[in-house]
């Protein structure tokens, strides 16, 4: 007989007047416990169902099709195709690299920016910045690409300013449409995302800690080194993970900027969706999607491990 899941027990532990089924029951048969568990967890059913339908099923579809040939047989050929070198493998590599760069750099910059904002005294500015972060974190695609073309493209506004100073970056090997150009454009939504996500953690830094440290003789730097940074680290890491996912998954911006000239997995999937398929490789798109999911799962694990280590004190 299946045992009741833990969340059923959590409810029966309490005996509030609101307890629907719980501790008052005398007889504790396993069926009784199961029914109780189900009854307690019933209200979260809509949520679970929604997630299953909206997220679970599409994912299962992808996983399934990744391993199916066009005729519908189980096959590893798709997986083989995307992992055995060539554009797909390069795509994964470049996408990962891009994700890493655009999570570390904007992550650090975003933390400083968030700190600068949260310690300011101007309420209006804080509100403006909060909503700006929300808007910009979701801004991307063609508009963003275009904005940057207008800014630091070959004939962009800033480019002409810099050229007037003799420092035209395009003359020194810079290209907006190569890896680093794309990374700079990504910062436009990655930094706001970081600010958005890390600000609540910054508010969790109590002024009393800072003052206590000062009172005991700590300089600004020593406070940060011994208290501030260690306390923030788990949240900062968690936020950087969000950035990693965002940088890895970004599609529209990369597509608009590079038009497919750089191998990036989301672009390759997009191409597939838009019908650019080679016959015999119809399900490559699904395999690529599956690959992305696997990579993201691995990075979740990686980040979680890092977080655990940095927050031993949280237990």
């Amino acid at each position, binding site marked *: 007989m299946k045992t009741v899941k833990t*969340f059923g*027990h*959590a409810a029966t532990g309490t005996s*509030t007047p*609101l307890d629907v089924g719980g501790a008052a029951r005398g007889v504790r048969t396993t069926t009784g416990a199961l029914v109780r568990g189900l009854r*307690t*967890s019933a*209200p*979260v059913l*809509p949520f679970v169902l*929604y*997630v299953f339908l*909206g*997220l679970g*099923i*599409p*994912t*299962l*579809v*992808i996983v399934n099709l990744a391993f199916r040939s066009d005729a519908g047989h189980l096959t590893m050929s798709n997986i083989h195709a995307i992992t055995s070198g060539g554009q797909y493998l390069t795509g994964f590599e470049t996408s990962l690299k891009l994700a890493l760069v655009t999570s570390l750099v904007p992550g650090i910059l975003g933390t*400083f*920016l968030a700190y*600068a*904002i949260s*310690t*300011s005294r101007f*309420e209006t500015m804080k*509100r*403006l910045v*909060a*909503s*700006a972060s*929300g*808007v910009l974190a*979701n*801004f991307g*695609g063609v*508009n963003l690409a*275009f904005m940057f073309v*207008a*800014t630091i493209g070959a004939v962009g*506004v*800033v480019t002409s300013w810099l050229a007037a100073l003799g420092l035209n970056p395009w003359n020194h090997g810079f290209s907006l449409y190569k890896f680093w150009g794309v990374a700079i454009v990504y910062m*436009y939504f990655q930094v*706001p995302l970081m600010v*958005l996500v890390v600000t*609540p953690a910054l508010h969790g830094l109590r*002024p009393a800690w800072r003052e206590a440290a000062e009172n005991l*003789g700590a*300089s*600004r730097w020593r406070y940060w080194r011994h208290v501030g940074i260690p306390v923030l680290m788990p949240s900062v890491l968690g936020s950087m993970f969000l950035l990693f996912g965002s940088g890895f*998954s970004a599609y*529209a911006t990369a597509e608009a900027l590079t038009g497919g000239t750089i191998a990036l997995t*989301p672009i390759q*999937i997009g191409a597939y*969706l838009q019908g650019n398929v080679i016959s015999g490789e119809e399900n490559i798109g*699904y395999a690529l999607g599956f690959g*992305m*999911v696997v990579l*993201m799962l691995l990075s979740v694990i990686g980040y979680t491990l890092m977080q655990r280590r940095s927050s031993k004190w949280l237990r």
Partner: protein
Amino acid sequence: MASIGTVFEAEGLVDHEFPMVPDGGNRRYRIRWGRGLILLLAGAYFLIPIYAALKFSLQNIDGKFSLSPITAIPSQPGLGAAFFLSVRLAIVTMVITMLLMVPTVIYVHLKMPRFRRVMEVVTILPIVIPPIVLILGVLHAAPLWLKSSPYLLSLVYVILAMPFVYRSLDSGLGALDVKTLVEASRSLGAGWIATIWRVLVPNLRAAILSATVLTVALVLGEFTMASLDLWETLPVWIVDFDQTNAHISTAVAMLSLIGTWVLLTLIISLDRPRSGKLRRNRTS
């Protein structure tokens, strides 16, 4: 016995960072400078491209400026429809999200505390599964009657917004003593719906507003899924129209950016009565 002060000096731990001039309580000149610099640089990075885009949009080939791209906006074909579609999607997404998440998160906080772990994991999933991949699966798996409605996008947007909405609600609830509030309300005779609506929701104002803001921003800015699902929301319209008249479409893009920003700021400002809560009361 030597005072601790001399120990400091000997060890070089003396902090010479701050000018020791009494200036009404804030000795931190240097920090203010540094903060100002960061904000300035950030402001430049984020505002200059907007300026560049606006410049492009309002400037003719012969270099003359005119506001005609902006004035021509209302008369552009499809814009009105696209705009209202985006707005409708935003509203529907918001409503579904709130109806789904608020009661669930409240219930979990109250009665199923261990399930919170599960929820944390579940709400990370939309990030693990990239939107481009998700739409891939949705388009394949969704029934035709659903695909023929734009609100399929709303349903998927709810999933996309979930991580942020959950985090917001979870931390908002964490700051309240939910159990006590609910028991007090129930003991006074309120039913569940009244309790949620009249007691909990008002106390969750900040969290709900923040979740709303994020959801609306998400929907109004989402391009990838909408375009691949072949629905002309505002972002999709802008990109499509780029082929016709780049000046106008850029103008629309910038205006929608600024407009969304203003709208969201207003929404956040609805929380004004509590805006001072993070400042410490130093008058006692």
